[in-house]
Protein backbone atom coordinates (compact mmCIF):
# COMPACT_ATOMS: atom_id res chain seq x y z
CA UNK A 1 0.00 0.00 0.00
CA UNK A 2 3.07 2.25 0.18
CA UNK A 3 2.81 3.20 -3.48
CA UNK A 4 -0.71 4.50 -2.98
CA UNK A 5 0.26 6.39 0.15
CA UNK A 6 3.20 8.08 -1.49
CA UNK A 7 1.04 9.00 -4.48
CA UNK A 8 -1.52 10.46 -2.11
CA UNK A 9 1.10 12.46 -0.26
CA UNK A 10 2.55 13.70 -3.54
CA UNK A 11 -0.85 14.88 -4.68
CA UNK A 12 -1.55 16.71 -1.44
CA UNK A 13 1.93 18.20 -1.56
CA UNK A 14 1.34 19.39 -5.11
CA UNK A 15 -1.86 21.12 -3.99
CA UNK A 16 -0.15 22.87 -1.11
CA UNK A 17 2.77 23.98 -3.24
CA UNK A 18 0.54 25.47 -5.89
CA UNK A 19 -2.21 27.07 -3.88
CA UNK A 20 -3.75 29.53 -6.33
CA UNK A 21 -4.53 33.10 -5.43
CA UNK A 22 -7.93 34.56 -5.81
CA UNK A 23 -9.40 37.60 -7.39
CA UNK A 24 -12.15 39.03 -5.27
CA UNK A 25 -13.86 41.27 -7.76
CA UNK A 26 -14.61 38.54 -10.24
CA UNK A 27 -18.24 37.57 -10.51
CA UNK A 28 -17.55 33.92 -9.92
CA UNK A 29 -14.41 34.06 -7.83
CA UNK A 30 -11.83 32.55 -10.10
CA UNK A 31 -8.39 31.51 -9.06
CA UNK A 32 -5.28 32.66 -10.78
CA UNK A 33 -1.73 31.50 -11.19
CA UNK A 34 0.96 33.96 -10.47
CA UNK A 35 4.39 34.45 -11.84
CA UNK A 36 6.57 37.05 -10.17
CA UNK A 37 4.33 39.89 -9.02
CA UNK A 38 1.90 39.07 -11.75
CA UNK A 39 -1.26 37.19 -11.64
CA UNK A 40 -2.85 35.63 -14.60
CA UNK A 41 -6.41 34.90 -15.01
CA UNK A 42 -8.48 33.40 -17.67
CA UNK A 43 -11.53 35.42 -18.46
CA UNK A 44 -13.53 32.96 -20.48
CA UNK A 45 -16.23 32.50 -17.92
CA UNK A 46 -16.96 36.18 -17.77
CA UNK A 47 -17.79 36.40 -21.44
CA UNK A 48 -18.57 32.89 -22.43
CA UNK A 49 -20.41 33.82 -25.58
CA UNK A 50 -18.09 36.22 -27.27
CA UNK A 51 -18.12 39.95 -27.64
CA UNK A 52 -21.14 40.06 -29.89
CA UNK A 53 -23.24 37.65 -27.89
CA UNK A 54 -23.51 35.63 -31.07
CA UNK A 55 -24.22 31.95 -31.39
CA UNK A 56 -21.35 29.56 -31.64
CA UNK A 57 -21.34 26.02 -32.70
CA UNK A 58 -18.91 23.23 -33.23
CA UNK A 59 -18.13 22.11 -36.69
CA UNK A 60 -16.60 19.05 -38.31
CA UNK A 61 -13.30 17.58 -37.08
CA UNK A 62 -13.90 19.07 -33.68
CA UNK A 63 -12.71 22.48 -34.73
CA UNK A 64 -14.77 24.99 -32.81
CA UNK A 65 -16.18 27.57 -35.16
CA UNK A 66 -18.31 30.61 -34.96
CA UNK A 67 -21.54 30.27 -36.82
CA UNK A 68 -23.13 32.85 -38.99
CA UNK A 69 -23.67 35.79 -38.92
CA UNK A 70 -20.29 37.31 -39.41
CA UNK A 71 -17.29 37.75 -37.34
CA UNK A 72 -15.29 40.61 -38.65
CA UNK A 73 -11.77 40.11 -39.82
CA UNK A 74 -10.78 41.75 -36.63
CA UNK A 75 -9.50 38.82 -34.65
CA UNK A 76 -11.13 38.59 -31.27
CA UNK A 77 -9.35 38.58 -28.02
CA UNK A 78 -7.59 35.76 -26.31
CA UNK A 79 -8.89 34.62 -22.99
CA UNK A 80 -6.07 35.50 -20.66
CA UNK A 81 -5.54 38.57 -18.60
CA UNK A 82 -2.57 39.56 -16.56
CA UNK A 83 -3.17 41.17 -13.24
CA UNK A 84 -0.46 42.93 -11.31
CA UNK A 85 -0.74 42.39 -7.61
CA UNK A 86 1.15 44.62 -5.23
CA UNK A 87 3.06 43.14 -2.32
CA UNK A 88 2.48 39.54 -3.17
CA UNK A 89 4.72 37.65 -0.79
CA UNK A 90 4.08 34.09 -1.86
CA UNK A 91 6.52 32.21 -4.04
CA UNK A 92 5.74 32.23 -7.74
CA UNK A 93 4.52 29.09 -9.44
CA UNK A 94 7.15 26.73 -10.84
CA UNK A 95 6.33 26.30 -14.48
CA UNK A 96 6.51 22.92 -16.15
CA UNK A 97 6.80 21.95 -19.79
CA UNK A 98 3.49 21.25 -21.47
CA UNK A 99 5.44 19.71 -24.35
CA UNK A 100 6.37 16.82 -22.08
CA UNK A 101 2.77 15.96 -21.30
CA UNK A 102 1.48 12.59 -22.47
CA UNK A 103 -2.01 11.24 -22.69
CA UNK A 104 -2.70 9.42 -19.43
CA UNK A 105 -0.51 11.60 -17.24
CA UNK A 106 -2.10 12.37 -13.91
CA UNK A 107 -2.88 16.01 -13.34
CA UNK A 108 -4.57 18.19 -10.75
CA UNK A 109 -6.76 21.19 -11.35
CA UNK A 110 -6.72 23.64 -8.49
CA UNK A 111 -9.13 26.24 -7.23
CA UNK A 112 -8.93 28.85 -4.55
CA UNK A 113 -9.07 27.50 -1.04
CA UNK A 114 -7.29 25.33 -1.99
CA UNK A 115 -9.68 22.98 -3.65
CA UNK A 116 -8.58 20.23 -5.96
CA UNK A 117 -9.81 18.05 -8.76
CA UNK A 118 -7.94 15.07 -10.10
CA UNK A 119 -7.80 13.37 -13.46
CA UNK A 120 -5.71 12.52 -16.47
CA UNK A 121 -4.72 14.15 -19.71
CA UNK A 122 -7.38 12.78 -21.98
CA UNK A 123 -6.10 13.99 -25.33
CA UNK A 124 -3.36 16.11 -26.82
CA UNK A 125 -3.49 17.79 -30.18
CA UNK A 126 -1.58 20.17 -32.37
CA UNK A 127 -1.80 23.95 -32.53
CA UNK A 128 -5.37 25.13 -32.80
CA UNK A 129 -7.41 28.26 -32.97
CA UNK A 130 -10.22 29.06 -30.55
CA UNK A 131 -13.62 30.21 -31.70
CA UNK A 132 -12.48 33.67 -30.75
CA UNK A 133 -9.55 33.43 -33.11
CA UNK A 134 -6.70 33.12 -30.67
CA UNK A 135 -3.93 30.71 -31.48
CA UNK A 136 -3.21 28.07 -28.84
CA UNK A 137 0.05 26.19 -29.16
CA UNK A 138 -1.28 22.81 -28.15
CA UNK A 139 -4.65 21.23 -27.50
CA UNK A 140 -4.77 19.88 -23.95
CA UNK A 141 -7.99 18.07 -23.19
CA UNK A 142 -8.63 16.99 -19.61
CA UNK A 143 -10.55 14.15 -18.06
CA UNK A 144 -11.43 15.83 -14.81
CA UNK A 145 -14.19 17.95 -13.37
CA UNK A 146 -13.70 21.71 -13.45
CA UNK A 147 -15.94 22.89 -10.66
CA UNK A 148 -17.41 26.40 -10.70
CA UNK A 149 -14.64 28.87 -9.99
CA UNK A 150 -11.89 26.60 -11.33
CA UNK A 151 -11.46 28.51 -14.59
CA UNK A 152 -8.16 30.36 -14.57
CA UNK A 153 -6.65 28.08 -11.99
CA UNK A 154 -3.53 26.07 -12.59
CA UNK A 155 -3.26 22.65 -14.13
CA UNK A 156 -0.53 20.97 -12.15
CA UNK A 157 1.50 17.94 -13.14
CA UNK A 158 2.61 15.12 -10.85
CA UNK A 159 5.70 17.03 -9.81
CA UNK A 160 3.68 20.05 -8.74
CA UNK A 161 4.64 22.21 -11.71
CA UNK A 162 2.10 24.36 -13.48
CA UNK A 163 1.62 23.10 -17.02
CA UNK A 164 -1.47 25.04 -18.00
CA UNK A 165 -4.37 27.27 -17.14
CA UNK A 166 -7.73 25.52 -16.96
CA UNK A 167 -10.67 26.86 -18.86
CA UNK A 168 -14.23 25.83 -19.34
CA UNK A 169 -14.91 28.86 -21.51
CA UNK A 170 -13.41 27.72 -24.80
CA UNK A 171 -15.36 24.61 -25.55
CA UNK A 172 -18.81 23.75 -24.52
CA UNK A 173 -18.48 20.16 -23.52
CA UNK A 174 -14.89 19.37 -22.91
CA UNK A 175 -12.48 20.65 -20.34
CA UNK A 176 -9.40 22.24 -21.75
CA UNK A 177 -6.23 23.81 -20.50
CA UNK A 178 -4.27 26.58 -22.13
CA UNK A 179 -0.70 25.25 -22.21
CA UNK A 180 1.90 27.30 -20.30
CA UNK A 181 3.75 27.88 -23.56
CA UNK A 182 0.81 29.89 -24.84
CA UNK A 183 0.23 31.59 -21.52
CA UNK A 184 3.89 32.64 -21.31
CA UNK A 185 3.86 33.92 -24.87
CA UNK A 186 0.70 35.97 -24.37
CA UNK A 187 1.84 37.26 -21.01
CA UNK A 188 5.15 38.44 -22.39
CA UNK A 189 3.37 40.26 -25.16
CA UNK A 190 0.85 41.79 -22.78
CA UNK A 191 3.63 43.01 -20.53
CA UNK A 192 5.71 44.34 -23.37
CA UNK A 193 2.99 46.10 -25.31
CA UNK A 194 0.08 46.28 -22.92
CA UNK A 195 -2.08 44.32 -25.32
CA UNK A 196 -1.94 41.45 -27.76
CA UNK A 197 -1.50 42.76 -31.28
CA UNK A 198 -3.90 41.35 -33.82
CA UNK A 199 -3.93 41.70 -37.54
CA UNK A 200 -6.93 43.60 -38.82
CA UNK A 201 -8.61 44.21 -42.13
CA UNK A 202 -11.63 46.12 -40.91
CA UNK A 203 -14.33 44.12 -42.63
CA UNK A 204 -17.19 41.89 -41.59
CA UNK A 205 -17.83 38.85 -43.75
CA UNK A 206 -20.20 35.99 -44.14
CA UNK A 207 -19.64 32.69 -45.98
CA UNK A 208 -21.39 32.22 -49.31
CA UNK A 209 -21.42 29.36 -51.81
CA UNK A 210 -20.29 30.16 -55.30
CA UNK A 211 -22.22 28.65 -58.22
CA UNK A 212 -20.25 26.07 -60.16
CA UNK A 213 -20.58 27.76 -63.61
CA UNK A 214 -19.18 30.99 -62.18
CA UNK A 215 -16.30 29.19 -60.50
CA UNK A 216 -15.47 27.36 -63.70
CA UNK A 217 -15.76 30.45 -65.84
CA UNK A 218 -13.47 32.49 -63.63
CA UNK A 219 -11.16 29.67 -62.53
CA UNK A 220 -11.78 30.36 -58.86
CA UNK A 221 -10.13 28.28 -56.16
CA UNK A 222 -12.40 26.55 -53.65
CA UNK A 223 -16.18 26.34 -53.77
CA UNK A 224 -17.04 29.17 -51.43
CA UNK A 225 -16.12 32.69 -50.53
CA UNK A 226 -16.81 35.34 -47.96
CA UNK A 227 -19.14 38.17 -48.84
CA UNK A 228 -18.24 41.51 -47.32
CA UNK A 229 -21.17 42.73 -45.26
CA UNK A 230 -19.45 45.49 -43.36
CA UNK A 231 -16.53 47.77 -44.18
CA UNK A 232 -15.09 49.73 -41.29
CA UNK A 233 -14.80 53.35 -42.45
CA UNK A 234 -11.17 54.27 -42.87
CA UNK A 235 -10.09 50.72 -42.00
CA UNK A 236 -7.32 48.96 -43.94
CA UNK A 237 -9.77 47.34 -46.37
CA UNK A 238 -11.70 50.57 -46.95
CA UNK A 239 -8.47 52.41 -47.71
CA UNK A 240 -7.53 49.71 -50.19
CA UNK A 241 -10.85 50.14 -51.96
CA UNK A 242 -12.70 47.00 -50.88
CA UNK A 243 -16.45 47.47 -51.28
CA UNK A 244 -19.53 46.20 -49.56
CA UNK A 245 -20.76 43.19 -51.53
CA UNK A 246 -17.32 42.07 -52.75
CA UNK A 247 -16.80 38.33 -52.30
CA UNK A 248 -13.37 37.43 -50.97
CA UNK A 249 -12.25 34.16 -52.56
CA UNK A 250 -8.55 34.06 -51.74
CA UNK A 251 -5.89 35.82 -49.71
CA UNK A 252 -2.38 35.60 -51.14
CA UNK A 253 -3.52 32.70 -53.26
CA UNK A 254 -5.00 30.65 -50.42
CA UNK A 255 -8.74 30.01 -50.83
CA UNK A 256 -10.95 31.63 -48.17
CA UNK A 257 -13.99 29.42 -47.75
CA UNK A 258 -14.63 30.47 -44.18
CA UNK A 259 -13.48 32.92 -41.56
CA UNK A 260 -10.92 30.52 -40.17
CA UNK A 261 -9.10 30.56 -43.49
CA UNK A 262 -8.82 34.32 -43.17
CA UNK A 263 -7.68 34.15 -39.58
CA UNK A 264 -5.07 31.57 -40.52
CA UNK A 265 -3.61 34.07 -43.00
CA UNK A 266 -3.62 36.93 -40.57
CA UNK A 267 -1.17 36.21 -37.80
CA UNK A 268 0.16 39.16 -35.83
CA UNK A 269 3.34 38.99 -37.92
CA UNK A 270 1.36 40.23 -40.94
CA UNK A 271 0.71 43.63 -39.43
CA UNK A 272 2.15 46.27 -41.72
CA UNK A 273 2.62 43.88 -44.64
CA UNK A 274 0.49 43.75 -47.77
CA UNK A 275 -1.87 40.92 -48.65
CA UNK A 276 -3.38 40.41 -52.05
CA UNK A 277 -7.09 39.77 -51.84
CA UNK A 278 -8.75 38.04 -54.77
CA UNK A 279 -12.33 39.27 -54.85
CA UNK A 280 -15.32 38.70 -57.00
CA UNK A 281 -16.89 42.02 -57.91
CA UNK A 282 -19.75 42.39 -60.37
CA UNK A 283 -19.10 38.91 -61.71
CA UNK A 284 -15.42 39.51 -62.46
CA UNK A 285 -12.12 38.77 -60.73
CA UNK A 286 -10.47 41.74 -59.10
CA UNK A 287 -7.31 41.94 -57.06
CA UNK A 288 -7.08 44.32 -54.16
CA UNK A 289 -3.87 44.91 -52.26
CA UNK A 290 -4.56 45.59 -48.61
CA UNK A 291 -2.03 46.78 -46.07
CA UNK A 292 -2.81 44.78 -42.94
CA UNK A 293 -3.48 47.00 -39.96
CA UNK A 294 -3.49 46.38 -36.25
CA UNK A 295 -6.81 45.90 -34.63
CA UNK A 296 -7.76 48.98 -32.63
CA UNK A 297 -8.17 48.24 -28.95
CA UNK A 298 -11.64 48.23 -27.63
CA UNK A 299 -12.38 51.46 -25.83
CA UNK A 300 -9.29 53.16 -27.25
CA UNK A 301 -9.75 55.64 -30.04
Amino acid at each position, binding site marked *: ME*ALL*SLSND*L*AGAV*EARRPIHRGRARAPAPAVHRDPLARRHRGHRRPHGPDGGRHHRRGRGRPARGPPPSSAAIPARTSRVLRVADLDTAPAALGDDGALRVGHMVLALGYG*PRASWGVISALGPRWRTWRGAEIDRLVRLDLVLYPGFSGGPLVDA*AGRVVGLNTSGLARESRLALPVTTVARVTDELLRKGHVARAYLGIGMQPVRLPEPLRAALGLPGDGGLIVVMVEPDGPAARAGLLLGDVLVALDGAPTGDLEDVQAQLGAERIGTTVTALVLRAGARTEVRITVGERPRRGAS
Partner: protein
Amino acid sequence: MSAVLTAEPTVEPLAAAAAAMAAELARVTVEVRGRGRGAGEAAVGAGVIWHPDGLILTNAHVAHRDVTVVLADGRACGARLVARDPRRDLAALVVDATGLPAAEIGDSGALRVGELVLAVGNPLGLVRALSAGLVHAVGPRAIHADLRLAPGNSGGPLADARGRVVGLNAMIVGGLAVAVPSREAQRFVREQLRG
Protein backbone atom coordinates in the same frame (compact mmCIF):
# COMPACT_ATOMS: atom_id res chain seq x y z
CA MET B 1 8.10 15.48 -4.92
CA SER B 2 8.92 12.09 -6.36
CA ALA B 3 8.34 11.03 -9.91
CA VAL B 4 5.87 8.42 -8.78
CA LEU B 5 3.25 9.45 -11.34
CA THR B 6 5.47 9.72 -14.37
CA ALA B 7 7.70 6.66 -14.29
CA GLU B 8 6.07 3.61 -15.75
CA PRO B 9 7.49 0.97 -13.38
CA THR B 10 5.54 2.56 -10.51
CA VAL B 11 2.19 2.00 -12.18
CA GLU B 12 2.03 -1.69 -11.44
CA PRO B 13 2.66 -1.52 -7.69
CA LEU B 14 0.25 1.39 -7.58
CA ALA B 15 -2.49 -0.58 -9.27
CA ALA B 16 -1.75 -3.59 -7.08
CA ALA B 17 -1.92 -1.46 -3.94
CA ALA B 18 -5.21 0.08 -5.02
CA ALA B 19 -6.68 -3.34 -5.75
CA ALA B 20 -5.52 -4.73 -2.40
CA MET B 21 -7.06 -1.77 -0.63
CA ALA B 22 -10.30 -2.13 -2.53
CA ALA B 23 -10.52 -5.76 -1.39
CA GLU B 24 -9.77 -4.76 2.19
CA LEU B 25 -12.39 -2.01 2.15
CA ALA B 26 -14.97 -4.34 0.62
CA ARG B 27 -14.56 -6.65 3.64
CA VAL B 28 -15.56 -3.91 6.08
CA THR B 29 -18.44 -2.66 3.92
CA VAL B 30 -21.93 -4.10 4.26
CA GLU B 31 -24.93 -3.86 1.99
CA VAL B 32 -27.96 -2.38 3.70
CA ARG B 33 -31.29 -3.72 2.44
CA GLY B 34 -34.82 -2.88 3.35
CA ARG B 35 -36.54 -5.56 5.32
CA GLY B 36 -39.89 -7.20 4.88
CA ARG B 37 -41.29 -7.78 1.47
CA GLY B 38 -39.55 -10.95 0.43
CA ALA B 39 -36.15 -11.73 -0.95
CA GLY B 40 -36.30 -9.32 -3.87
CA GLU B 41 -35.48 -6.36 -1.69
CA ALA B 42 -32.80 -4.20 -3.34
CA ALA B 43 -29.83 -2.67 -1.60
CA VAL B 44 -30.69 0.83 -0.42
CA GLY B 45 -27.25 1.76 0.75
CA ALA B 46 -24.07 0.66 2.40
CA GLY B 47 -22.58 0.64 5.86
CA VAL B 48 -19.26 0.32 7.64
CA ILE B 49 -18.41 -2.30 10.24
CA TRP B 50 -17.32 -0.06 13.10
CA HIS B 51 -16.77 -2.70 15.77
CA PRO B 52 -16.13 -6.48 15.50
CA ASP B 53 -18.97 -7.15 17.93
CA GLY B 54 -21.64 -6.16 15.44
CA LEU B 55 -21.76 -2.34 15.43
CA ILE B 56 -22.37 -0.99 11.94
CA LEU B 57 -22.54 2.70 11.02
CA THR B 58 -24.50 4.01 8.08
CA ASN B 59 -26.44 7.12 7.05
CA ALA B 60 -29.68 8.06 8.77
CA HIS B 61 -31.33 8.36 5.38
CA VAL B 62 -30.44 4.74 4.64
CA ALA B 63 -31.68 3.24 7.91
CA HIS B 64 -35.12 4.47 8.95
CA ARG B 65 -35.98 1.29 10.83
CA ASP B 66 -34.61 -2.21 11.33
CA VAL B 67 -32.94 -3.45 8.16
CA THR B 68 -31.11 -6.43 6.74
CA VAL B 69 -27.37 -6.19 6.22
CA VAL B 70 -25.37 -8.43 3.93
CA LEU B 71 -21.76 -9.01 4.91
CA ALA B 72 -18.91 -9.43 2.46
CA ASP B 73 -18.95 -13.21 3.02
CA GLY B 74 -22.55 -13.31 1.84
CA ARG B 75 -24.19 -13.73 5.24
CA ALA B 76 -27.44 -11.80 5.58
CA CYS B 77 -28.26 -10.66 9.13
CA GLY B 78 -31.16 -8.81 10.62
CA ALA B 79 -29.92 -5.52 12.07
CA ARG B 80 -31.47 -3.50 14.87
CA LEU B 81 -31.51 0.28 14.56
CA VAL B 82 -30.09 1.47 17.87
CA ALA B 83 -29.45 5.15 17.24
CA ARG B 84 -30.24 7.65 14.55
CA ASP B 85 -29.33 11.30 14.06
CA PRO B 86 -30.84 12.82 10.91
CA ARG B 87 -29.06 16.12 11.53
CA ARG B 88 -25.67 14.48 11.10
CA ASP B 89 -27.13 11.85 8.76
CA LEU B 90 -25.77 9.04 10.90
CA ALA B 91 -27.35 5.84 12.15
CA ALA B 92 -26.03 2.93 14.22
CA LEU B 93 -27.10 -0.64 13.55
CA VAL B 94 -26.31 -3.70 15.60
CA VAL B 95 -26.17 -7.24 14.24
CA ASP B 96 -25.95 -10.34 16.36
CA ALA B 97 -22.44 -11.40 15.38
CA THR B 98 -18.91 -11.29 16.73
CA GLY B 99 -15.47 -11.32 15.16
CA LEU B 100 -16.53 -9.19 12.22
CA PRO B 101 -13.79 -7.50 10.17
CA ALA B 102 -13.99 -3.97 11.55
CA ALA B 103 -12.73 -0.92 9.71
CA GLU B 104 -9.65 0.93 10.85
CA ILE B 105 -10.87 4.42 11.61
CA GLY B 106 -8.73 7.36 10.48
CA ASP B 107 -8.72 10.95 11.64
CA SER B 108 -10.74 13.13 9.30
CA GLY B 109 -9.23 16.18 10.96
CA ALA B 110 -5.83 15.33 9.54
CA LEU B 111 -6.99 15.12 5.92
CA ARG B 112 -5.29 17.42 3.44
CA VAL B 113 -6.77 18.71 0.21
CA GLY B 114 -5.38 16.64 -2.63
CA GLU B 115 -5.02 13.38 -0.70
CA LEU B 116 -6.29 10.30 -2.46
CA VAL B 117 -9.54 8.85 -1.22
CA LEU B 118 -11.43 5.69 -2.11
CA ALA B 119 -15.12 4.94 -1.72
CA VAL B 120 -16.84 1.57 -1.63
CA GLY B 121 -20.57 1.07 -1.82
CA ASN B 122 -23.39 -0.31 -3.88
CA PRO B 123 -23.86 2.40 -6.49
CA LEU B 124 -26.83 1.62 -8.72
CA GLY B 125 -26.98 -1.89 -7.32
CA LEU B 126 -23.37 -2.81 -8.14
CA VAL B 127 -22.24 -4.51 -4.99
CA ARG B 128 -19.05 -3.21 -3.35
CA ALA B 129 -17.98 -1.11 -6.28
CA LEU B 130 -14.97 1.15 -5.87
CA SER B 131 -14.55 4.80 -6.81
CA ALA B 132 -11.31 6.73 -6.48
CA GLY B 133 -10.77 10.45 -6.24
CA LEU B 134 -9.22 13.04 -4.05
CA VAL B 135 -10.07 15.37 -1.24
CA HIS B 136 -11.55 18.51 -2.74
CA ALA B 137 -12.18 20.51 0.42
CA VAL B 138 -12.43 19.74 4.13
CA GLY B 139 -14.96 21.33 6.44
CA PRO B 140 -15.87 20.60 10.05
CA ARG B 141 -19.16 18.98 9.10
CA ALA B 142 -18.35 17.53 5.72
CA ILE B 143 -15.56 16.23 3.54
CA HIS B 144 -15.97 17.16 -0.10
CA ALA B 145 -14.30 14.75 -2.48
CA ASP B 146 -13.73 14.89 -6.21
CA LEU B 147 -15.07 11.38 -6.56
CA ARG B 148 -17.92 9.76 -8.43
CA LEU B 149 -20.75 8.46 -6.27
CA ALA B 150 -24.20 7.17 -7.12
CA PRO B 151 -27.28 6.28 -5.10
CA GLY B 152 -26.33 3.17 -3.14
CA ASN B 153 -23.00 4.60 -2.02
CA SER B 154 -24.74 6.22 0.93
CA GLY B 155 -23.40 5.04 4.26
CA GLY B 156 -20.37 3.39 2.70
CA PRO B 157 -16.79 4.15 3.65
CA LEU B 158 -14.62 6.96 2.37
CA ALA B 159 -11.06 5.85 3.03
CA ASP B 160 -7.66 7.51 2.79
CA ALA B 161 -4.63 6.10 0.98
CA ARG B 162 -3.79 3.93 4.00
CA GLY B 163 -7.23 2.35 3.87
CA ARG B 164 -8.39 4.05 7.06
CA VAL B 165 -12.02 5.12 7.04
CA VAL B 166 -12.16 8.92 7.26
CA GLY B 167 -15.81 9.41 6.47
CA LEU B 168 -19.18 7.99 5.52
CA ASN B 169 -20.40 8.95 2.07
CA ALA B 170 -23.69 10.75 2.40
CA MET B 171 -24.56 12.98 -0.51
CA ILE B 172 -23.75 14.12 -4.01
CA VAL B 173 -23.72 17.89 -4.35
CA GLY B 174 -22.97 19.40 -7.72
CA GLY B 175 -21.16 16.22 -8.75
CA LEU B 176 -18.99 16.28 -5.66
CA ALA B 177 -19.12 13.54 -3.07
CA VAL B 178 -19.95 14.79 0.41
CA ALA B 179 -19.07 12.57 3.35
CA VAL B 180 -19.71 12.78 7.08
CA PRO B 181 -16.24 13.05 8.68
CA SER B 182 -15.05 10.15 10.85
CA ARG B 183 -14.63 12.57 13.78
CA GLU B 184 -18.35 13.30 13.65
CA ALA B 185 -19.09 9.58 13.45
CA GLN B 186 -16.90 8.84 16.45
CA ARG B 187 -18.57 11.62 18.43
CA PHE B 188 -21.95 10.17 17.46
CA VAL B 189 -20.93 6.72 18.64
CA ARG B 190 -19.62 8.13 21.95
CA GLU B 191 -22.76 10.18 22.57
CA GLN B 192 -25.37 7.64 21.53
CA LEU B 193 -23.89 4.40 22.72
CA ARG B 194 -22.42 5.23 26.10
CA GLY B 195 -22.38 2.21 28.36
